[in-house]
């Protein structure tokens, strides 16, 4: 366990964290402001990844893929809100879970019919492949650094958008007191639809960036969905700042736990038990974290102000 390794793993955790944040940012607003348990957010990740991979394959240019995928996911979020989600606002959580679960099945199948069941080929653009030495003797893939940077840029972007712009202020006002916001002349319905589409868009960006490093295939968003729900719950529903901190925490815990826990266990118990229990505990670590947080803080670390 050298310092280099720990640093490198911290980078890895950071990268996992910012990706999670991109998915969680929209979802926490959807949950916090509109009070909709939107399980199909993972499908937006998939749509983003497919749009980027398909366009990149057709044009041969990675960046065009990225660029065009943003309006695609925005549109898909906008249309989805209009067609279905707005009818779910006044429903209880259970019905929302059921309807959006149905959406997951639908989207996965639609993609399977449209693009075939096989994973799509998508690779790194030449300009982003290669390595940088983050420490002497520790080359790190440029693309991963790029993901971290884009993720952080998005996080800063979301932060600026929410805390510095007029629309961001409207969003916060709407979250704080929707009736009063409307009474001051803001069209809450359109505002919500916009938030929803932007949230979808960020999930799409996460999908686009994941495309070249993971398999682009139907259902690719679901593992991310569950994890980002965990992030939202830990961070406190509706809090973008909470989502960011929780995403980084979850990313780091998952990454560092996976890599170092078995070794650490080995120093406590015998080899066989450690090898058996290590990966098991590592895969449960995120859920254990969430359960512990909720037991002590039943509304998460940073509950959004009411």
């Amino acid at each position: 366990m050298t310092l280099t390794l720990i640093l490198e793993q911290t980078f890895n955790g950071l990268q996992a964290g910012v990706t999670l944040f991109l998915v969680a940012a929209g979802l926490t607003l959807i949950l916090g402001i509109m009070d909709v348990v939107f399980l199909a957010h993972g499908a937006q990740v998939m749509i983003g990844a497919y749009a980027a991979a398909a366009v990149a394959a057709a044009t041969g240019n990675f960046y065009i893929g990225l660029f065009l995928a943003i309006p695609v996911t925005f549109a898909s979020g906008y249309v989805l809100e209009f067609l279905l989600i707005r009818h779910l606002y006044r429903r209880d959580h259970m019905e929302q879970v059921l309807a959006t679960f149905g959406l997951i099945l639908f989207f996965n199948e639609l993609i399977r019919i449209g693009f075939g069941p096989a994973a799509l080929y998508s690779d790194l653009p030449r300009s982003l492949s290669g390595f940088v030495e983050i420490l002497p003797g520790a080359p790190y893939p440029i693309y991963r650094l790029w993901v971290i940077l884009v993720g952080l840029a998005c996080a800063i972007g979301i932060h600026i958008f929410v805390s510095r712009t007029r629309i961001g202020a409207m969003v916060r006002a709407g979250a704080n007191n929707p009736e009063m916001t409307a009474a001051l002349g803001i069209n809450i319905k359109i505002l919500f639809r916009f938030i929803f589409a932007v949230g979808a868009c960020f999930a799409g960006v996460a999908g686009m960036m994941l495309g070249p490093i993971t398999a682009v295939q139907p259902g690719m968003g679901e593992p991310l969905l569950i994890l980002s729900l965990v992030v939202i719950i830990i961070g406190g529903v509706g809090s973008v700042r909470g989502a960011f901190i929780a995403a980084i925490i979850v990313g780091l815990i998952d990454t560092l736990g996976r890599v170092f826990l078995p070794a650490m266990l080995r120093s406590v118990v015998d080899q066989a038990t450690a090898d058996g229990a290590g990966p098991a505990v590592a895969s449960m670590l995120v859920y254990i974290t969430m359960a512990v947080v909720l037991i002590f803080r039943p509304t998460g670390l940073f509950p959004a102000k009411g």
Partner: protein
Amino acid sequence: MKKAFTIAALAAAITLAPAHAETVKIGYMTTLSGGAGIIGKQMQNAVELALEHKGGKLGGMDADVVFVDDQRKPDVAKQLANRLVKSDRVDVVAGIIWSNLLEAVHKPVTRSDILLISSNAGPSTVAGEGCHKNFFSMSWQNDQTPEAMGKHMQDAGIKSVYLMAPNYQAGKDMLSGFKRYYKGNVKAEVYTKLGQSDFQPELSALRATAPEATMVFQPGGMGINFVKQWKQAGMDGVSKLYQVFTVDGVSLPALKESALGILGTQTWSPDLNNAINNKFVADYKAKFGGYPSFYAAQAYDTILAIDHAIAKSGSKDTDKMRAVLAAGNIPTTRGLLKMNSNHFPIQNIYLRETVKDADGIVTTRVTETVFTDHADSYAAKCKF
């Protein structure tokens, strides 16, 4: 379209053949829906190709294949197996990709005195103490392929190796199979989360260990992710990658050039040079576009085995077919396949390298035969 063919072939057979022609009914279970549907589709293609090659008849009998989709759920598989046995009254149940699904259908089918022929799954339980006389594998026992990998790496004089597999039964089987033949320094044995999509942390840890070689087992989508990330992390300069069931006909279309040069062991390869395999691969490519995977080849072999059993015994009676299959020498894409006492094949295992073919398509090529007539290590425990 493909179904239409079967029906047309059947119709033709019915009109041409005299009324007393017998029909053999096969229930073919695989995963057609969901994320793993791609594998099932290839297997279905191969089964239909085999029927086409046999003129819609197996061993002279009209063949009727019922495809069922197990949705990769054990309870659905178990229920479907019962349906095939009790309602459709099939003569043989075949197919099955996943070990856990095989465990779920094993008892209900074998108990009904019907042959169960696996086209892929082969966990140690059904090879050893849990074996049954009515079960046959047309694939391999889980341990066999990594055993070959172990032997190859041992013979190649590789001094240190880093092992990685998902944290589930097959993953553990694979690594213990490998260690049975590899006696060098195992630097670490890492079990990843099942379904994991990002391996960068594991790769970072691996880099820090700097083993001479790395042997992985990451089937399906995990394999695509692993290999991509391996290349992107520049691991080729750190360690040499060996794999089992990670780079195959299913993942290659998504990996393309990034998989070039990777070595793995397998009981089959598209370039195995024998008449049956050449015809199979050529016709598969012509009909469905792209190379078949080993899943497809094994599915094809499964139908050939049933054909062989009926033709040689002249009957679809379970006892008679069983006797023929147990005797071995089944003509398949892997040549004449021998059968072990536990009804698992005794077969060659090859070292394959990922290469580009003449058309520039990425595929695999046999570079070496690691094992000749390799038998699995559980047969001794099997008592019918």
